[in-house]
């Protein structure tokens, strides 16, 4: 294909670098520096999409972020596919593969276009009205159908192959937009030595200067001034210029989100280098120089391919060397469109005419158009357009009435004036003020440390833009104001909002206000007729300004219609919220590095490697990886756990308990502090002794437990549950700082200081004893629940005699870097005793056989110490502890049917109940049944040769011996209520 609409010279494209690309499978050529939109236009392609609701053929409307029609899916394959990209922002690269959306089977023949014929049946709000009846049809028919039709673009089904980067940054001034105002702001701020970040969404900084062949700034042609300004900025060491970087969100306290595209412009050639980078910038001051967006005119059938914004057409000609057509008709209410007509005329187009709604056009551009002999129709309007897949004609009529005149054309270039881009300012909660002379909302009082410059502040000339930028940049850092000498850049005035007056029945035509959401002027009027008065209601009823538009194109025209129909000034109507993001940002930017193994930190103990080398199966416990069981040969979990259980009960098992939370509580008031935190009494606990502690919340319910050792008069070694460690430390620190600041006690997390190795079983002492230095660990010298500091395998250790299995047990705390060596020494020492490593599953079974609770399993945030039979642990003489007053509430004393911990034995000893299953008295009772409680733990007990279960049961303590029922999917299970201690109830084995 030749680029038939490409000019032979001019523009900022590189004609020496031809790029091949495809659109809907058809191959085209473009040049380096093109966007997908400019390259398609160069090839004469205007039809690029189908509209959302009516599936009307649509063309490229704009040259920037505001593009509502030209949405394309781009990517070489599904793993690199991004839907809904605006073709005006997609930089062309060799091999680019793009496809249109919302059409089936093709853009030219689209079955969905039947909606267009039925348009009278799809008024605004039709969803709310049409599908009310019959009721069942909504879920069965209408909703699935609508869901199928709704949405634009196709979601890729393959995981995103790209990787993404993230950065935090700080600066004195963040300048958003590198047009003339932004450049002047950055220069003014940089001169004071300030740290400046200048970001711009486009590949090249420059903004309007990239399509500015006429203006002269400080004696330099605009393009040369731009080059010089960028060179100056590059020479400042504290200035960072970020191209292809869109400021999409303005967050509190001047935190801005920027999305920097890194490889999209090259087609993501390498998956190992990031596709994009999310910047989180904390700026002392922000200068928003986001420019203005040209408004479409709302006239009948204003959406045919070939109808575009006038300034966009000029940009295509001047910046990309592309003619949008050969016979353009200009329709305007603003002087700047005359400039477009002149530019196209100079480039060789046969301008079909300039239709101006205004009775007079006097500016220098209009004068020049007159001199050039272009036909001008003043006080006239376009009352309709024709052409199926491309506009071919327009009817022009005088506003005063009279005969319609048919004008043949291949493009219509419209201008309703310019809307300042106040999106980011509005996101920052800055107040907008309506300016009636400009028909625009302008930034008013800011809510953040931010300033707005240039066209975004409603300034209309290049000189004003430059000087307001310089003033903002200088003002942000206390620099000096600058003036600029600008020639050949005259003021262009005008503008119009609302529906263009004409001589047609407004109900018989469609004049589009919001192209992306297919909202017409008629829809907005309908919303008002149906009683909507607030602009927010009209937005929701019609969907105007929703999705990616966020008021970029549609907002002011919708307000113009409302204003006219309600007879109220726009200032009294107000505007809708401008939501972030300014333009869509791929999810990957927000996920950043947090994917796969790095989604969350994977915490591993010092002994993890040993277990992994022996084929342990791990489970996730919080962020930790814990060995669940150690299968031998072809063992499944049940067989491995049974073997491990037998080993512990009959010999000795070794277990990695390193993940237990540990807190060193130190200071003269350590015991007093623990008295106030835990339910237990600590004052009389002697150094060298351990006690099992229970921690409540203020509401009296158990939140954590653990064994606490008194190392010395002033030092306690507190253990917590694995998952509770950070929570408990935070809670303790909170109480210490806010409630008990007078106590001389300090808390330090030692969870990771120690590797903890549990040796459990009747032979445990025999394994440890040969490795111990400096302590007598005989049963007499070191009874159950005692501790000693000694050396084990040559390493300083805190040795606890403690058991979570019911057997003789020890827990060895050694500095973590020695953990694996000590573990290996113990394995060696235990070899002769058949030492068996076991995992968390076996640990769970063994403790359940003994009725030891696990916080979070037997407790659920509503369980008191009495509910699990631990009332006796409460230090009765203590004046207070966290939760004491709650336990004394009358409600606890008078409630008779609290759920209490019990054991359950199934009638069928082989049946292992499901955890979480409910308990009922009579399985034949009508549903809903009365629930008496639920199963908290349930295992096969190898030791007992049968299943066991723990449960929380209403009034459970009084129900011992009762027969109850557990309805399961497999049928009803009969159970007997027993004590929660299934094995060795006297605790003889602990004292071995």
């Amino acid at each position: 294909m030749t680029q038939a609409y490409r000019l032979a010279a001019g523009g900022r494209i590189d004609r020496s670098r031809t790029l091949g690309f495809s659109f809907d499978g058809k191959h085209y050529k473009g040049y380096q520096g093109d966007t997908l939109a400019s390259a398609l236009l160069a090839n004469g392609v205007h039809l690029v999409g189908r509209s959302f609701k009516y599936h009307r053929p649509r063309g490229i409307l704009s040259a920037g972020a505001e593009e509502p029609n030209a949405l394309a899916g781009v990517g070489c394959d599904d793993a690199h596919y991004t839907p809904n990209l605006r073709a005006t922002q997609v930089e062309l690269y060799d091999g680019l593969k793009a496809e249109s959306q919302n059409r089936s089977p093709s853009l030219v023949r689209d079955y969905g276009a039947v909606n267009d014929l039925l348009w009278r049946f799809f008024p605004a709000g039709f969803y709310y009205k049409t599908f009310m009846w019959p009721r069942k049809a909504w879920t069965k028919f209408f909703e699935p159908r609508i869901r199928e039709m709704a949405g634009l673009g196709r979601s890729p089904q393959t995981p995103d192959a790209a990787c993404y980067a993230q950065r935090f940054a700080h600066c004195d001034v963040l300048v958003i937009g590198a047009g003339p105002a932004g450049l002047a702001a950055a220069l003014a701020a940089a001169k004071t030595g300030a740290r400046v970040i200048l970001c711009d969404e486009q590949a090249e900084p420059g903004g309007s200067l990239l399509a500015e062949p006429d203006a002269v700034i400080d004696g330099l042609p605009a393009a040369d001034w731009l080059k010089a300004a960028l060179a100056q900025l590059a020479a400042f060491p504290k200035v960072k210029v970020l191209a292809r970087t869109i400021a999409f969100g303005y967050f509190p306290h001047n935190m801005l989100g920027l999305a920097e595209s890194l490889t999209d412009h090259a087609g993501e050639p390498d998956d190992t280098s990031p596709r994009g980078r999310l910047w989180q910038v904390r700026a002392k001051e922000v200068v928003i120089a986001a420019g203005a967006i040209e408004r479409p005119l709302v006239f009948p059938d204003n959406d045919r391919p070939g109808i575009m914004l006038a300034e966009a057409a000029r940009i295509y000609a001047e910046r990309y060397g592309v003619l949008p057509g050969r016979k353009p008709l200009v329709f305007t209410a603003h002087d700047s469109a005359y400039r477009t007509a002149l530019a196209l005329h100079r480039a060789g187009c046969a301008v079909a005419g300039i239709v101006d709604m205004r009775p007079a056009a006097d500016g220098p551009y209009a004068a020049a158009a007159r001199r050039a002999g272009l036909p001008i129709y003043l006080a006239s309007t376009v009352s309709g357009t024709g052409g199926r897949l491309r506009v071919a004609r327009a009817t022009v009529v005088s506003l005063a009435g009279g005969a319609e005149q048919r004008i043949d054309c291949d493009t219509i270039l419209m201008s309703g004036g310019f809307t300042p881009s106040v999106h980011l300012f509005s996101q920052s909660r800055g107040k907008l003020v309506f300016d009636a002379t400009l028909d625009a909302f302008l930034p008013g009082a800011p809510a953040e440390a931010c300033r707005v410059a240039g066209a975004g502040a409603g300034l209309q000339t290049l000189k004003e833009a430059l000087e307001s930028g310089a003033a903002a940049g200088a003002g942000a850092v206390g620099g000096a104001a600058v003036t600029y000498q600008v020639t050949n850049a005259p003021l262009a005035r005008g503008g119009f909002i609302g529906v263009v007056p004409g001589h047609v029945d407004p109900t018989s035509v469609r004049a589009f206000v919001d192209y992306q959401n297919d909202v017409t002027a008629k829809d907005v009027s309908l919303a008002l007729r149906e009683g909507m008065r607030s602009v927010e209601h009209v937005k929701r009823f019609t969907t105007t300004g929703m999705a990616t538009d966020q008021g970029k194109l549609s907002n002011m025209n919708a307000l113009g219609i409302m204003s006219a129909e309600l007879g109220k000034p726009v200032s009294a109507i107000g505007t809708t919220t401008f939501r972030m993001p300014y333009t869509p940002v791929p999810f990957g930017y927000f996920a950043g590095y947090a994917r796969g193994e790095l989604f969350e930190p994977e915490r591993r103990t010092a002994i993890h490697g040993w277990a992994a080398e022996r084929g342990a199966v791990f489970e996730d416990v919080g962020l930790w990886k814990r060995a669940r069981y150690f299968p031998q040969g072809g063992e499944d979990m049940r067989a491995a756990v049974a073997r491990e259980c037998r080993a512990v009960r009959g010999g000795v098992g070794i277990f990695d308990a390193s993940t237990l939370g540990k807190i060193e509580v130190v200071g003269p008031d350590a015991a007093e502090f623990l008295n106030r935190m835990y339910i237990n009494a600590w004052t009389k606990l002697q150094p060298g002794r351990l006690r099992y502690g229970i921690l409540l919340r203020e509401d009296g319910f158990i939140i954590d437990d653990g064994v606490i050792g008194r190392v010395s008069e002033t030092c306690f070694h507190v253990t917590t549950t694995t998952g509770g460690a950070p929570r408990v430390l935070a809670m303790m620190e909170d109480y210490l700082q806010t409630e008990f600041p007078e106590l001389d006690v300090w808390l330090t997390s030692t969870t990771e200081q120690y590797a903890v190795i549990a040796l459990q079983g009747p032979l445990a002492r025999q394994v440890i004893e040969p490795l111990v230095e400096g302590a007598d660990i005989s049963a007499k010298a070191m009874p159950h629940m005692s501790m000693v500091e000694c050396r084990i395998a040559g390493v300083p250790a805190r040795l606890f005699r403690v058991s979570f299995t019911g057997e003789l047990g020890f827990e060895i705390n050694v500095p973590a870097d020695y953990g694996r060596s000590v573990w290996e020494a113990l394995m060696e020492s235990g070899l002769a005793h058949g030492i068996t490593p076991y995992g968390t599953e076996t640990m769970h079974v063994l403790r359940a056989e003994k009725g030891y609770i696990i916080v979070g399993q037997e407790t659920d945030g509503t369980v008191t110490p009495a509910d699990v039979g631990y009332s006796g642990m409460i230090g009765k003489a203590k004046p207070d502890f966290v939760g004491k007053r709650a336990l004394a509430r009358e409600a606890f004393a008078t409630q008779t049917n609290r759920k209490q911990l019990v054991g359950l034995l199934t009638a069928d000893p082989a049946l292992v109940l499901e955890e979480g299953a409910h308990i009922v008295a009579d399985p034949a009772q009508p549903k809903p049944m009365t629930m008496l409680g639920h199963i908290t733990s349930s295992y096969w007990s190898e030791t007992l040769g049968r299943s066991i279960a723990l449960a929380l049961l209403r009034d459970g303590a009084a129900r011992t011996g009762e027969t109850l029922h557990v309805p399961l999917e497999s049928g009803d299970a009969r159970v007997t209520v027993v004590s929660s201690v299934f094995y060795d109830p006297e605790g003889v084995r602990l004292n071995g």
Partner: protein
Amino acid sequence: MANLVHMVAPARRVPPCADTGDRRYTPVNGGARFLLRLREAAIGPAAEALGIDLAVPLNRASVVNSRGAMRLSPDEWLLLWPETEAASVAPLLAARLTDRRYSLTDISHRQTGLMLNGAAVPDILNSGCALDFDLAAFPVGMVTRTNFFKAEAVLWRQDEFSFYLEVWRSFVPYVWSLLSIVGREYPE
């Protein structure tokens, strides 16, 4: 039964850091660490006992020979000590602060150090740390507790482009992987 009592203390085994080939990062293994907490009145005596200035401003490090004291909060210091001198720390303080109104906790094995050197290191750290590393905001000699992605860390700027990072041992593989991935964005 074999008498194993007199076996030599084994070498410390720190969390593994795969060789990434990135010469800007070096694991710093070994060394002793303590967390010292005390009231204001005890700062002077404790400093004398340890032979190091503790009255440094908040978030500043004090270094004498190869000992370092990082003031992380008004009453909290992270002491980095040579392993060979570690055993004397507790007795020195106990002898001087006889009212025991302080806490000294050995956390030598709780965390591991990583040394980061290179002009891109501030940028690399900014991938997962929200702090401002401009020299005016984070001068040489500053040390603070912060986050690197989801890992808590202590970060000490030893030079314009040299940072010492301490993280809890189980977070080392996570932090190391992220450093190596981010490092690829900033070629050496």
